[in-house]
């Protein structure tokens, strides 16, 4: 008997970046210390909803991401909770400010960075962040969220405001299925499907595609477990070890370079903890390129069929 899927699609789709914009409005109603900063991308990061709702609490810093981050650092010392919003690809451009300006003194600044991964689409490789998680993971004290759907995005934004310190929230441009809301705890992974033959660890909007892969695998007689992490740091070590030990064959699927992201997070957890078959499915040390999101997912081996095939071949 196959194991049931523990997420229920609502039938609706919404990009996590859109959910981020809406979540900020909700958060803004609850917490008057929340301010939102943009670098001339409010229409794309979807913070324009917040700007309309709270014009006095939205600050555009112009096309100057580094300045935005340090301005946020300064504002946080005055008791505010700034949410900096821009594209994830620009995490590198303001990295020194995130590192030295915010993380080194552990200031209460949030980063809602959108348009991550190749599903950004047509704008191409110059704008597709494949390294942002790697950059953020090495910063001491940084919390990292990668919500898998709109509901989880709300939960991540809400949680971010309660954490006293830097938080990075990675969102996507591509609309993805909304699942019914589930309980949320920072640092805890979610078992989406139990299984015995192998386990797939994933995060973010790859949930949709790994779910498809799991169904295809089932048709091929493989009972795969699926675990999705909304928090990459701090990471759910216990759940990772439990499922790796139980299944023996471990796969990670991420819309990020296989260097430094989820795959390496899992690898560092498993290292020295037993003998496993292990494969990282993700962007194999290449840059992205222009294209339709679906075509890009296929090109980079991240659509359901490609994922299933890579699991079967391992």
């Amino acid at each position: 008997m196959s194991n049931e899927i523990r997420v229920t699609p609502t039938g609706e789709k919404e990009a996590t970046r859109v959910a981020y914009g809406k979540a900020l409005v909700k958060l803004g109603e609850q917490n008057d210390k929340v301010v939102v900063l943009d670098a001339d991308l409010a229409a794309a990061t979807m913070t324009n909803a917040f700007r309309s709702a709270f014009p006095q609490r939205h600050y555009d810093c112009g096309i100057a991401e580094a300045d935005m981050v340090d301005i946020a650092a300064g504002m946080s010392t005055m008791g505010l909770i700034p949410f900096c919003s821009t594209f994830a690809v620009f995490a590198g451009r303001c990295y020194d400010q995130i590192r030295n300006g915010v993380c080194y003194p552990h200031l209460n600044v949030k980063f809602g960075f959108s348009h991550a991964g190749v599903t950004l689409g047509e704008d191409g490789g110059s704008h597709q962040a494949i390294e942002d998680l790697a950059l953020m993971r090495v910063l001491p004290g940084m919390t990292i969220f990668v919500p898998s759907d709109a509901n989880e995005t709300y939960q991540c934004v809400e949680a971010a405001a309660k954490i006293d310190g830097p938080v990075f929230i990675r969102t996507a441009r591509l609309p993805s299925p909304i699942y019914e809301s589930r309980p949320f705890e920072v640092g805890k992974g979610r078992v989406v499907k139990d299984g015995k033959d192998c386990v797939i660890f994933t995060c973010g909007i790859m949930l949709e595609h790994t779910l498809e892969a799991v169904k295809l695998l089932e048709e091929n007689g493989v009972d795969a477990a699926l675990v999705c992490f909304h928090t990459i740091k701090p990471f759910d070590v216990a759940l990772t070890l439990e499922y790796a030990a139980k299944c023996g064959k471990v796969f990670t699927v991420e819309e990020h370079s296989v260097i430094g992201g989820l795959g390496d997070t899992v690898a560092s957890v498993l290292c020295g903890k037993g003998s496993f078959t292990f494969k990282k499915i993700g962007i194999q040390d290449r840059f992205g390129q222009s294209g339709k999101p679906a075509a890009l997912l296929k090109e980079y081996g991240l659509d359901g069929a490609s994922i299933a095939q890579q699991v079967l071949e391992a």
Partner: protein
Amino acid sequence: MDIHELKSVCTQVRRDIIVMTNKAGAGHPGGSLSITETLVALYFDVMRGIDPKDDKNPNRDRFVLSKGHAAPGLYGTLCERGFFGREEFDHFRQLHGILQGHPDMKKCPGVDASTGSLGQGISIAVGMALGAKHTGNPCHVYTIIGDGESDEGLVWEASMAAAHYKLDNLTVILDHNGMQIDGTNDQVMSLGDVRAKFEAFGYDLIEVADGNDMEQVLKALHTPACPGKPRFILMHTLKGKGVSYMEGQVGWHGKAPNNEQAAQALKELEG
């Protein structure tokens, strides 16, 4: 505190700079000595709400040492102001010390921002001033930037934002000693007409001919703010001021005096 007392504090801070860099065998004396008058004027006369017993008073004026490598100057000033004792100089740049190589707001009392990565302090100060306006906090934010530091694009991004948001609660002070690590400003990266450039960015600019003259420094810092405009003080200073062999010498940017040199400096700095 009258002008003679302030000058006497400056001499003591200069002695502190020599003592701590000599003990550590490292640090940045040149650019600390050039801003000593400004630091002392700020902490002993100009800034409001400065209280070593309550260094987190939310309404205190803020100071950001954007040129964070001038930490010895800041530490000497904070020490003389009563934030910690001179025994801390023994641990300057040492493991577990509160006086890190560059200012650390989490470790050192009285430090309002962690700095050291050039260009960032002025941007953080802009954020503080903007945050103060947003929250209705009456504080004023001061920051000292370096002329070498002004090579960083972030200095100009922050300046643009300061003018855009009409931050008349912000004072940016340029320590214009004309020198940086690899040589003079003109040798490394010319700032051109520095006054015209910063004025063009929208500051209300005051030029101080001798930024190592306490009277001139006080006069500039006490000039009332121009409503709707951030203040910029172009402070002409002498790198290494007060120590004969360091004055105007590029080589004393990031080098500590040895025992013999320190003894000579301390002799010159006898009040």
